[in-house]
């Protein structure tokens, strides 16, 4: 039995979420099935999105970029996470955590703009390279923090103990660091994959003609093209893909996470 005071206290939150988040999503579903020109309900928009090669190519291209971003940020940040979690102590650890979390507070747009100026100066213009550099640059903190969080659970001095008992560097990585890193790798990869897959700012600012990923495609369909049906259907398709990947990842690895 839930007490009445709890229901009253939670009610404004629930009502606000229903009005501001769930009701708009009903509009999203409605327009993904409603053909405004012909005035009929249809599944054509979904069929278009999943069969039209133009849309499919954009989705696949975005997925490729997202996977590349995951791999690059993982490779770049794993040694950093290992250093902070296993080797840094006291003040240095706090300092490094502050250094690597501060970019969270600066918006993507501003970081992408700052990077664009710098790349412009060193002669890298808008294009695939600038797009990838921008993705990796912006997502480094999102991969690093989950990695650090899981590596920080390694009992202190276990590495020293292992070394004393004759373990080599390879043993330490294979038997201690990698097993402990797995949940962090999973959380970080899911986070970076989902966010970079639907990214709008970085492809638009840094990608140039190679920047036509799902984010800019949805923007074009909805705000520039007035094609609400296809835009809404595409937004739902990428949401379903995102939710599916989260559910699959967590079903599969639940035991490792908790």
């Amino acid at each position: 039995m839930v007490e009445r005071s709890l229901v009253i206290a939670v009610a404004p939150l629930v009502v606000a979420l229903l009005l501001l988040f769930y009701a708009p999503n009903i509009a999203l579903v409605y327009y993904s099935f409603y053909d405004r020109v012909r005035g009929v309900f249809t599944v054509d928009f979904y069929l278009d999105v999943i069969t039209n090669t133009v849309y499919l190519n954009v989705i696949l291209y975005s997925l490729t970029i997202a996977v590349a971003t995951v791999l690059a940020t993982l490779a770049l940040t794993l040694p950093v996470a290992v250093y902070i979690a296993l080797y840094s102590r006291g003040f240095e650890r706090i300092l490094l955590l502050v250094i690597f979390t501060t970019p969270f507070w600066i918006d993507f747009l501003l970081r992408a703009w700052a990077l664009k100026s710098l790349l412009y100066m060193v002669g890298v213009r808008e294009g695939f390279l600038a797009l990838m550099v921008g993705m990796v640059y912006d997502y480094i903190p999102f991969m690093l923090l989950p990695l650090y969080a899981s590596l920080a659970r390694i009992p202190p001095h276990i590495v020293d103990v292992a070394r004393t008992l004759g373990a080599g560097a390879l043993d330490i990585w294979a038997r201690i660091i990698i097993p402990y890193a797995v949940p962090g790798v999973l959380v970080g990869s899911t986070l970076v994959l989902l966010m970079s897959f639907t990214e709008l700012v970085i492809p638009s600012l840094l990608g140039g003609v190679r920047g036509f990923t799902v984010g800019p495609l949805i923007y074009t369909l909805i705000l520039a093209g007035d094609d609400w049906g296809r835009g809404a259907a595409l937004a739902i398709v990428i949401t379903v893909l995102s939710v599916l990947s989260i559910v699959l990842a967590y079903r599969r690895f639940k035991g490792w996470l908790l």
Partner: protein
Amino acid sequence: MSSKQLLRAYTYAIALLLYTPIAFMVVSSFNSSPYVGVWEGFTTYWYQLLLRDSEAHIALVNSLTIAIVSSTLSVSIALLAALQVRGRRLTAVDALVYPPIVMPEVAEAVALFLAFTYLGVEKGWLTVMLGHTAFNLAFAYVTLTVSRVRFEELEDAARTLGAGRLRIFKDIILPLAMPGIVAALAITFLLSFTNFIKTLFTTGPGFYTLPILIWNRARRPGISEFASQNALNALATLVTLTALSIAVAYTAYMLRKARR
């Protein structure tokens, strides 16, 4: 070099790379040439230009008022719930709260655009503020429920000693919940102040916030003096410094609370 020293050197190199673009942006904002990469001497001209930049002033006022109203509104509503939830996991509430955090932002933005269009609401300050509040509510609730907001043993002690309900709320509940409230306010304020994607889809003609103004100018740099690369760097520097000072103040506050 030992593997520890190697890892350390690598870590600081990555840290340096992370801040290079921001440092470059700050330095460029003092360059008297309007173009990046051509150093023509030190100037504060671009900051003086901002004083005459009426579009930036309007954008600043819009960004600030929306962030203040949205963060206060969402934290108040979430706090009301969190104080009664007392750290329990309410599956039904959690199930409603997490989707706004997980859903791709661009899809949520499209949903808001379509809903406001369907209702025929004129898009501007109110629609942008409500759009920000939608996800701020979720972040505020999660922030407030992961940090401990209620200390029932202290409330019981105060009650035993004869304190009334108002006194308990004012002297026990509110002060102890403060770190959580400050954290939730800081996070929601910044999420709203720097939000771009949802704002882009919920704004109407002629209404813009700072990120929207920066976006418009960044896509067409050099269209006017206000949109020249280094004028934009000055504006972006100020916005970044604002966000950073809030972050530093927040971290300092949290560290001080943690030490007590």
